[in-house]
């Protein structure tokens, strides 16, 4: 069908509009739905971004009436809404379109009940959201397929959002993709990686491709290395059961951080269109050098904090990596030889996610021996461009400046851009952005099948190595920056972690 351009469109002034649709959330009583999805949807309603007839159908096994579900979600929205934005009248209108269907996802009758509910609501466009345990994904997709819920009437759409993890290794990811494709086309499949919905991650593209000064430096000639850190100060916080099966490598690096790395390192796309941007991300992921089995010990480090095995639901002998670090290289002309150090861990000294791009030092330490220069801070310092993803989203550039006074004493100073202050308006949460994108049919910030498989391919040798060995865990204390082996890994390449 040829899309007719709306001659009245005014994208500068009109908000992207969510079409009339319903969203069916599987796992609707779960943590993600309560903490993220319902607050995000409510916020979209609060900002008048949803059509009045927009409907939500929640599903979980717990028997509940629509009213019970509304009451539960009201609490969740009040508790987890950002900025505490809440309007009683708006909630009443929002809740009137909030429905609930109890049932086991393995039971075919559930899908019959969902069909009836959707017929009653009368929405032709339906977005299915898999917010359950990953082990149910295939069952639910099959259920949707068998019940023909995936078949949209003429001119309407049916889409599927899948939460990570997309499989637990390359083989299972391929299997999941193939099961999904038996029911949904790839263009109707939205694999959500909420990191890509974060304003600051999107801003990497703006920084790189909207400005003229960075791109000429964005290559092996000027960049010494890149550090990507996602540190959490908390532990598994009651998610021990899930986490011990996942670990930091699968939970963070395989998806979020490799996607961030791809955004930092990808080539510019010719146009800013969904598949053009995703093609470049996918190309970058495919260009990451795959570690040989004998390289894994040199380039990857696993860690586990002291006390993890005592967490509720955790096997006392668990080999889970609560910390993972890796050194990755990109085999292309732009990045050949530039190491990308990626690490993620729990119980680290602070919660921070950032990307530090370290530039090469000036070729000559002109001020190193200046009279009165002293030492310490005076030593040549490389320039650092830091993209802060959370908290305090923003960008900082570290460079050297002369200290006031006689002599030529240099001191590192920071030039900061802070999202919250330069743009006073509130940034939408990643889930708000991504939900709207899925409803309007824009997959730019979603992960495509080839991207998922490429990132599993990168991780697979590490997984295989780690699955076949016993670590001497625990190997790091809570409140430290991870195991000593991670420091040794980066030191072998003549670099040090930026632990600040």
């Amino acid at each position: 069908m040829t899309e007719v351009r709306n001659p009245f469109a005014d994208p500068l002034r009109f908000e992207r509009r969510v079409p009339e649709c319903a969203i069916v959330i599987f796992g609707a009583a779960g943590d993600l739905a309560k903490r993220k999805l319902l607050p995000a949807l409510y916020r979209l309603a609060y900002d008048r971004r949803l059509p009045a007839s927009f409907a939500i159908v929640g599903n979980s096994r717990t028997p509940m009436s629509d009213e019970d579900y509304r009451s539960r979600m009201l609490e969740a929205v009040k508790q987890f809404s950002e900025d505490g934005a809440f309007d009683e009248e708006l909630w009443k209108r929002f809740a009137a379109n909030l429905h609930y269907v109890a049932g086991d996802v393995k039971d075919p009758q559930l899908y019959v009940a969902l069909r009836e509910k959707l017929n009653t609501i009368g929405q032709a466009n339906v977005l299915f959201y898999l917010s359950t345990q990953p082990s149910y994904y295939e069952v639910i997709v099959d259920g949707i397929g068998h019940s023909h819920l995936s078949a949209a009437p003429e001119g309407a759409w049916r889409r599927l959002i899948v939460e990570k993890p997309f499989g637990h290794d390359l083989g299972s990811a391929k299997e999941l993709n193939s099961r999904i494709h038996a029911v949904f086309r790839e263009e109707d499949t939205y694999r959500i990686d909420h990191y890509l919905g974060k304003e600051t991650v999107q801003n990497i593209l703006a920084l790189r491709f909207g400005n003229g000064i960075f791109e000429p430096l964005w290559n092996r000639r000027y960049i010494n290395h890149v550090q990507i850190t996602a540190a959490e100060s908390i532990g598994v916080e009651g998610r021990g059961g899930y986490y011990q099966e996942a670990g930091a490598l699968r939970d963070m690096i395989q998806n979020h951080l490799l996607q961030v790395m791809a955004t930092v390192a990808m080539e510019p796309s010719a146009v800013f269109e969904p598949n053009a941007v995703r093609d470049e991300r996918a190309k970058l992921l495919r260009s990451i050098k795959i570690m040989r089995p004998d390289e894994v010990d040199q380039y990857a480090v696993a860690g586990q904090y002291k006390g993890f095995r005592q967490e509720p639901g955790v096997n006392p002998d668990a080999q889970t990596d609560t910390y993972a670090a890796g050194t990755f290289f990109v085999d292309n002309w732009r990045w050949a030889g530039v190491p990308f150090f990626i690490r993620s861990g729990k119980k680290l000294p602070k919660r921070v996610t950032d990307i530090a791009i370290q530039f090469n030092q000036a070729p000559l330490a002109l001020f190193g021996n200046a009279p009165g220069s002293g030492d310490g801070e005076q030593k040549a310092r490389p320039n650092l461009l830091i993209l802060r993803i959370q908290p305090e989203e923003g960008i900082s550039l570290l460079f050297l400046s002369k200290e006031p006074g006689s002599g030529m004493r240099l001191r590192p100073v920071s030039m900061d851009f802070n999202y919250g202050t330069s743009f006073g308006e509130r940034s939408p949460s990643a889930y708000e952005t991504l939900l709207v994108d899925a409803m309007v049919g824009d997959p730019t910030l979603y992960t495509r099948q080839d991207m998922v498989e490429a990132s599993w391919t990168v991780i697979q040798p590490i997984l295989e190595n780690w699955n076949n060995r016993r670590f001497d865990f625990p190997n790091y204390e809570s409140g430290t920056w991870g195991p000593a082996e991670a420091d040794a890994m980066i030191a072998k390449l003549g670099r040090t972690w930026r632990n600040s």
Partner: protein
Amino acid sequence: MSTTAVQPERILKDLQQLWAQMAVDQADAGGVLRACAMTLVVVAENAADAEHVRQTVGVLMHNHPSRAVILRPSGDGGSGAELDARIFAECWKPFGKTQQICSEGIEVTAGRSGFAEVAKFLVPLRVADLPVVLWCRGTHVFASGAEPGPLQPLFPLADKIIFDSSEVVDADSALQFLRRLRGRGRRVADLHWTRLTGWREVLAHLFDDRALQPSEVTGAQVTFGGSSVTTCAHYFAAWIRTALPAVRVSIGSGDGPRGLHSVKLFTAADSLTITLGSDHCVEVSGCGRHYRSMLPSSSEEALMQEELGILGPDPVYERVLTA
């Protein structure tokens, strides 16, 4: 706030001192962060208006932190100092944060020597390398017609000039004025166009939803209230014409207060009307649709927020203005 002698250098120095003092005063309370993304110059109509502007600017700064320069005509016909100025800071604390974010402002009182002096005075007060937006309040600016008006010297300083033609009696000459400025390369905006965003969005959505196909529309009628045609009626009609060049669009008057009352689109077999309803809503009826849609806020703050969000070209408005 402090009153200062009127050299720009002195004002800038006073601002520096103000920030240094605030940093000291707030050191134990989370500190202050000075934010600035543009220079916003506002020409108030009179002293009372300047007070109102000060409040509006305070609201705008949350989303568009800026150095605000409020130009206030002196009420005494110009006796005493020709130019006088005082500085102020506008601070707010984002939700959940301890650090205050502050923007700075300068209130300039201008006497009889007029705005030629003011323009020279403003040059060093602009924040270097950031956009300058000039907001000319009131309708007197349109009165100059083809003649260079008193505000003319300020126009070259601005990257964007915002007017409001809502109270203008002679809509044609107001539009001519804006077109002339545009023709001279000035980027202009009109808050009376901004007021139409909600209406336009409702109409555009009808085409998104395929309630109507562009090719089905055979005619359109824009109806306004009040005794004379308003710029918004002209704008809306021109917008439809630029979107559907083959469609004949007429403008008619109706009963009721000034402003846009309804827009009707005709097809061969049916028609669809968007009518201003109660409670700041519009009602859509026809072509199988019948619903109400709430219009966005049309407060001055909301309109300015929208305009300050567009500092580059605004192709739709520019097409409409020159249509």
